[in-house]
């Protein structure tokens, strides 16, 4: 009764394409993340350098020369925002992609094979998620050393967990589906069954998680930057920018506010994208 009767008459490709155009979150998210990616990648071509100091315009307000004004060293705020976005986005994607792939792999194995491997993995996941995210990340960055490589290591040790868990559960359910049983009974090799008949169905959840996780990681990278455990100055990063400019909050409010808005806008883009992909693939979030 609640099933959409029209969807039965469309092929899968058509439905996915049709849902893409009908999903407002997906369209909004795609446009937003697309524009942010374009600005961050292409912006530096015509924007002033992030390190050029304009001696006549220290802490200047918005002007034709500096659209968003300058900081206390006379550096162009917009340039620094864009450059920081480039750094933070790159770090977030790189820091997440390998743990995500690892998590999907481990989760698939655990969910499909079950047995002791599954039990051990689930216990390990439970132990890791017992640590509050920020406590563990901060402790790990402290232990392995601050900076970009510290962020990568810390997030690698923590980040795989949610992918492993979500993929493990999805795999355990999908592996019971008749089409998977039928593929196995048909005499196909286990690897073929897993990669052709299970993974395409479980990976959608991981992709949705990835899109929303990017936001979490960006916020984490920024928080570490703010706390002095992340990207070291003078490389611009939204977190360090907020920290450096926090004392101007009452006089030049846009200095600390703008990097925050940039984070929120990026977060909104990826969240909408995640919502949209979930809509299109009918994945529950």
């Amino acid at each position, binding site marked *: 009764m609640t099933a959409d*009767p029209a969807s039965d008459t469309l092929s899968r490709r058509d439905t996915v394409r049709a849902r893409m155009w009908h999903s407002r979150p997906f369209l909004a998210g795609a446009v937003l993340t697309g524009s942010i990616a374009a600005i961050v990648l292409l912006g530096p071509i015509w924007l002033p350098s992030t390190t050029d100091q304009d001696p006549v315009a220290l802490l200047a307000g918005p002007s034709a020369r500096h659209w968003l004004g300058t900081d206390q060293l006379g550096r162009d705020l917009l340039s620094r925002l864009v450059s920081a976005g480039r750094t933070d986005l790159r770090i977030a994607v790189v820091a997440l992609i390998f743990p995500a792939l690892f998590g999907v792999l481990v989760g698939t194995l655990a969910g499909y094979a079950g047995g002791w491997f599954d039990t051990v993995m689930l216990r390990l996941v439970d132990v890791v998620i017992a640590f509050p995210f920020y406590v563990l990340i901060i402790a790990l960055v402290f232990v392995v050393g601050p900076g970009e490589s510290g962020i990568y290591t810390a997030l690698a040790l923590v980040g795989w967990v949610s992918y492993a868990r979500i993929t493990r559960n999805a795999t355990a359910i999908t592996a019971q589906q008749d*089409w998977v*049983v*039928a593929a196995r009974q*048909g*005499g196909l090799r286990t690897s073929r069954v897993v990669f*052709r008949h299970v993974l395409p*169905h479980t990976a959608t959840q991981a992709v949705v998680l990835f899109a929303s996780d990017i936001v979490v990681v960006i916020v984490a990278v920024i928080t570490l930057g703010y706390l002095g455990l992340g990207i070291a100055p003078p490389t611009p990063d939204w977190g360090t920018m907020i920290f450096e400019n926090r004392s101007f909050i009452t006089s030049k409010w846009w200095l600390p506010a703008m990097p925050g808005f940039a984070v929120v806008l990026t977060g909104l883009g990826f969240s909408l994208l995640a919502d949209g992909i979930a809509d299109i693939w009918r994945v529950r979030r």
Partner: protein
Amino acid sequence: MTGPVLTLAGLTVSFPAGRERRDVVRSVDLELPAATTLGIVGESGSGKSVTLRALMGLLPASARVSAGMLHLGGAPIPLVGRGVRAARRRRLAMVFQDPAAALDPLMTIGDQISEVPRRAFGQSPQSSRDTALDLLRLVRLPDPERRAAAYPHQLSGGQRQRAVIAMALAARPEILLCDEPTTALDVTTQAEILELLRGLRERSGLSMIFVSHDLAVVSSMADRITVMRSGAVVESGGTTALLHAPREAYTRTLLNAVLELPAVDPEPATPMPPLVGRAATDRLRASDITVFYGSGAAAVRAVGGVDLLLGAGRIHGLVGESGSGKTTLGKVLTGQIRADVGRVVLDGGILPARRSRDQLSAIQMIYQDPYSSLDPRMTVRQTLAELLRRVCGLPRRQVEARCVDLLEKVTLPRSALDGYPGQFSGGQRQRIAIARALAVEPKVLVADEPTSALDVSIQAAVLDLLVRLRDDLGLAVVLISHNLAVIRHICDDVSVMVGGVIVETGSAAQVIDHPRVGYTRQLIEAVPRLRKDPA
């Protein structure tokens, strides 16, 4: 007889379909005379459930009633909007299809029933509890005091449906709306619930609207029958008249699709020689199969010491109610489950606990749910070609021809190759699933309830296909089913399972027409039959 207690005129309900809306129910008229039962019969998509929900005022928010007038006892009653439920108080109540879903899982049975007198009719807590217990006794729930304190998940399906009926009666209705109330139940439980509903009707003068896809069930309940198809009424009439002289072709199709069971021989048959040793062309022999679920003290025996012999070119029916172990046995035969005891022998060779890929593909399975048995992300061509290339090792240029050949075997056109499962109907999907099973050239086919998710008019085609495959390809087929009529219709041999053991085995005609075991007889007698003679 006085005037009708319920009249519905010109009901039209639409649901959103993509950007447009689609009429799911179109200009439906119904009339229910006092103290009678109206049966509504239809296949999936006929709009029968939506009509019932509209009567009850339970349409989802996305539904829109664009036309229709409802009168209860002559007074107009709104179909949507404010006051829709207040107008139905003490007049309408509903029994749902799935009793497990219709009961709040977090509340005891007793509380769910007693909250009606307590909250809706303002009785004291004590008298509400008494009312609930009375109702549970009325629906003949065994041990009502203890069951009232139980949660829904602690009851069996039949007990749950009794509780749902008690809950509906608690609302003190004049008219009881029953939406497929026995579809989710076993055949013997179904007979009990139908008997209960008949008894309630006689005792209390309740009027009833009884919706079902099963013409035999409806004919056993209803005074008048309305046949629906694609949201519209096909024809209406008195039960006897409609069954004897249907006016519309569609009603005749439905009638013809009903597989009839012959009357049970009142005398038990003389003991038959055992089936073992008779078949010269043994294909599959399972002996002493025993399966436990769980371990230690909590272990439950699902199958206990079952022997089964399967001849080539024969269809062997495995019949039993839910929990009888028939599906577990099927999974043992196909190698999905390892038996704790016993062995399976295929063509004289013992199949090991861990079967090789060749051994797996020699015994193929047809699954119950055609909507989940095909990978939704693969076209039919991809599904078939994958097996042909990787399992049968067919050269690439022969794959196409073989795919077409397989589709021909299941009477599907070549154009189906490029479709995704989502584009096909349930019956077509089931045939694609059979083609996939045939792709690896199996020797044995295990079909687990292959038609129970299908509409009756499609059932016959799939069953005929199984018969043809037996004859043309000499396949040995195990047909697992709860439906005795289906079994009787196409099986050569039958085994009856209960509680994990086979209680009776023999030829289909012998076992079903002349059952020797009491349980088999009980099972066969519980099957609802078309009531063509006036009650």
